[in-house]
């Protein structure tokens, strides 16, 4: 189970900043994602239009979520599958265990799933004598290290190649200790060979789901490695873990969102494997699972409907917001203290585990607006974080110093004109202070507020709002 360390966000950040290995990994990885996304977006002139379409599809679905979930469930059952409705993480863990027990499972292979992290399936299975084996390369090393993912699509974002080599030597003790890893590919090959037998031996395969399709009762996984497909095809039982907001009406709706997902996530035009599973093995089929289950998790999401946080349920988990976040870029994912890091985590985590535990996270923002500008479904992340700050403020959970800072900030924020004027005025000062270094560790006037945050230096061209307005004018 992921232990919640979100309340210690400030200490986590301090530790992250002092961690040389982490800073090295972050420095290396950051640029790759940004450039690849920018190139993929540039290759598709319709990308901006598709963002509006993606937003609208998700809004339509959320406005009729009860209808689409019921339709989805009915179609899963028509195709010979079973849907397990689970209000809480505990319900979902119990449902998974029950399915595994009925299947007489000893080992379970797993594709990458953030819901699995959220509900803590692995610990639960282990406690009951069932061995879970993570098969996504990143998840595999995370499991060897007994850690948790630091990124929602690249679980080992915080690791360097040396870490991989050292861990493989430490854990794969049956192989010659002096073997040489000439290239990254050698590490990959060792993992491939290791996991082959696990795929073949598993009794149950557990995957996540990027989408659920109401029209057909299908669950969809999107991967590059092929581990998800091995996981859901070879064992006798397939369990797809999905949260309720993953549902979309039709294949066409999913297709439009898929055009956004890989480009926003890894900067690919399309991922290698996009796989639609519908029910269990059909008569005459020579392979495929004999049982198909969808564990459908709420865990606090239904309470977000109708609230100022509803828009967060549009999230398709592409990770663009964290890849582009200056705060994530220096703290990494573990500092956020729970499953979901970065801007999407700062909004989602308080909704799912409570603002009393995650109240610091919405403050982990410089309000630079980059996350919103890249979000494929146009979630107003900074604004939504602001709602949490206001709630936290009202509940007087904030330390006094922060309350004062926020009070001033909220006053400005409610007066957009004034806010823009003030930030424009401040930009001049900030540029001087940063002297081209790209980031700040402290700011006059905002001392207590910026301590523990890394503020990006303003880029040439003025505030984000000013640049955005210019862009909209075609400037």
């Amino acid at each position, binding site marked *: 189970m992921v232990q919640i360390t979100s309340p210690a966000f400030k200490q986590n950040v301090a530790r992250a900043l002092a961690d040389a290995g982490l800073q090295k990994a972050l420095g*290396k*990885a950051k640029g790759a994602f940004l450039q690849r996304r920018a190139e993929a977006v540039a290759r598709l002139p319709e990308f901006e*239009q*598709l963002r509006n379409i993606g937003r609208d599809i998700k809004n339509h679905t959320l*406005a009729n*979520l*009860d*209808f*689409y979930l019921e*339709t989805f469930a009915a*179609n899963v059952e*028509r195709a*010979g599958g079973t849907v397990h409705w689970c209000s809480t993480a505990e319900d979902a863990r119990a449902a998974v265990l029950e399915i595994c027990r009925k299947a007489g499972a000893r080992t379970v292979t797993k594709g990458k799933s953030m819901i699995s992290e959220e509900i803590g399936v692995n610990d639960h299975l282990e406690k009951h004598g069932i061995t879970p084996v993570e098969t996504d*390369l*990143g998840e595999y090393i995370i499991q060897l290290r007994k850690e948790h993912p630091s990124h929602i699509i*690249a*679980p080992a*974002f915080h*690791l*360097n190649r040396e870490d991989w080599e050292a861990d493989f030597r430490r854990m794969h003790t049956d192989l010659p200790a002096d073997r040489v890893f000439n290239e*990254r*590919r050698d*590490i*990959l*090959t060792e993992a491939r060979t290791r996991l082959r037998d696990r795929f073949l031996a598993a009794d149950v395969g557990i995957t996540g789901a990027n989408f659920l399709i109401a029209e*057909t009762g299908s669950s969809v996984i999107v991967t*590059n*490695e*092929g*581990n998800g*497909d*091995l996981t859901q*095809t*070879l064992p006798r039982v397939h369990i797809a873990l999905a949260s*309720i907001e993953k549902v979309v009406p*039709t294949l*066409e709706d999913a297709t*439009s969102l898929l*055009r956004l997902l890989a480009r926003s996530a890894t900067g*690919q*035009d*399309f*991922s*290698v*494997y*996009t*796989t*639609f*599973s*519908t*029910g269990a093995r*059909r008569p005459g*089929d*020579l*392979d495929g699972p004999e049982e198909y289950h969808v564990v459908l998790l*709420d865990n606090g999401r*239904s*309470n*977000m*409907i109708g609230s100022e946080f509803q828009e967060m349920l549009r999230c398709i988990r592409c990770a663009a917001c964290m890849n582009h976040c200056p705060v994530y870029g220096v703290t990494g994912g573990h500092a956020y203290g729970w499953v979901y890091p970065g801007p999407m985590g700062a909004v989602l985590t308080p909704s799912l585990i409570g603002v009393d535990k995650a109240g610091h996270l919405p403050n982990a923002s410089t309000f630079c607006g980059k996350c919103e500008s890249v979000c494929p479904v146009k979630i107003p992340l900074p604004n939504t974080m602001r709602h949490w700050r206001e709630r936290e403020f009202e509940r007087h959970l904030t330390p006094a110093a922060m309350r004062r800072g926020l009070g001033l900030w909220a006053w400005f924020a409610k007066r957009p004109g004034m806010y823009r004027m003030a930030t424009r005025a401040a930009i001049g000062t900030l540029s001087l202070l940063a002297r081209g270094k790209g980031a700040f560790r402290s700011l006059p006037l905002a001392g207590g507020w910026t301590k523990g945050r890394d503020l990006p230096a303003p880029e040439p061209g003025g505030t984000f709002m000013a640049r955005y307005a210019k862009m909209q004018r075609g400037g």
Partner: protein
Amino acid sequence: MSKDAILSAIRRGLKRGPLPADQRAMLDGRLATHPRHLIPARSRVPRPEQVALFVRNVEKEFGSVARVAEAKDVPGAVADYLAAQNLAPRFVLAPHPDLAALPWSDRPMLEFEARRAQATDLVSVQHGYAAIAETGTLMLPSDPARPTTLNILAETEIVVLRASRIAGAYEEAWDLLRAERQDATTGGFMPRNVMLVTGPSRSADIEQTLELGAHGPRRLHIVLVDDDPAALPAS
């Protein structure tokens, strides 16, 4: 019951009860007509360019393509590819009548069995159902004649695809499934499994650097049969 609790929490948030009949009918209509959204212009080109776009995209994603004039040329193309890759001329073949009908005896060196794939199979030859030019993507649905294991267990996957089955956009490929497939057990058109495959398997989990050959095939080769006169490159 969790189901009722979840649905009523959603309805509470939406400030309404269950949808009235007329609105349900509207949403049922949307599902039945499954309207398309914007389709990128890149695939809306004449047939020869569509096929060329498909080939370009496959190659961009580290796959390879061999074009042959007729189905009878497939065994030769398979044999040549395996020889060029230094692979033994042995494979598991999808038990599909179109593949069984190919003149394999023209290439007596080739050994194969028609069945699902096993972990020990190094090469598979799959029957391509359709493909999508937009991103160089294969559509590989499961059925008794096209086992899913052929797409994931072998190190090298060869897919035999007819040019007439290359669609521009994903939406057109979905409509092929809708028109051609009807499953007696489920009453729906969706096969148990539909894989959209774009290139060979890869991972970028080590320092966000792309490496080919993760858990799925390391090589993806397409033998493209030019059965569509309208799709031939202008000569």
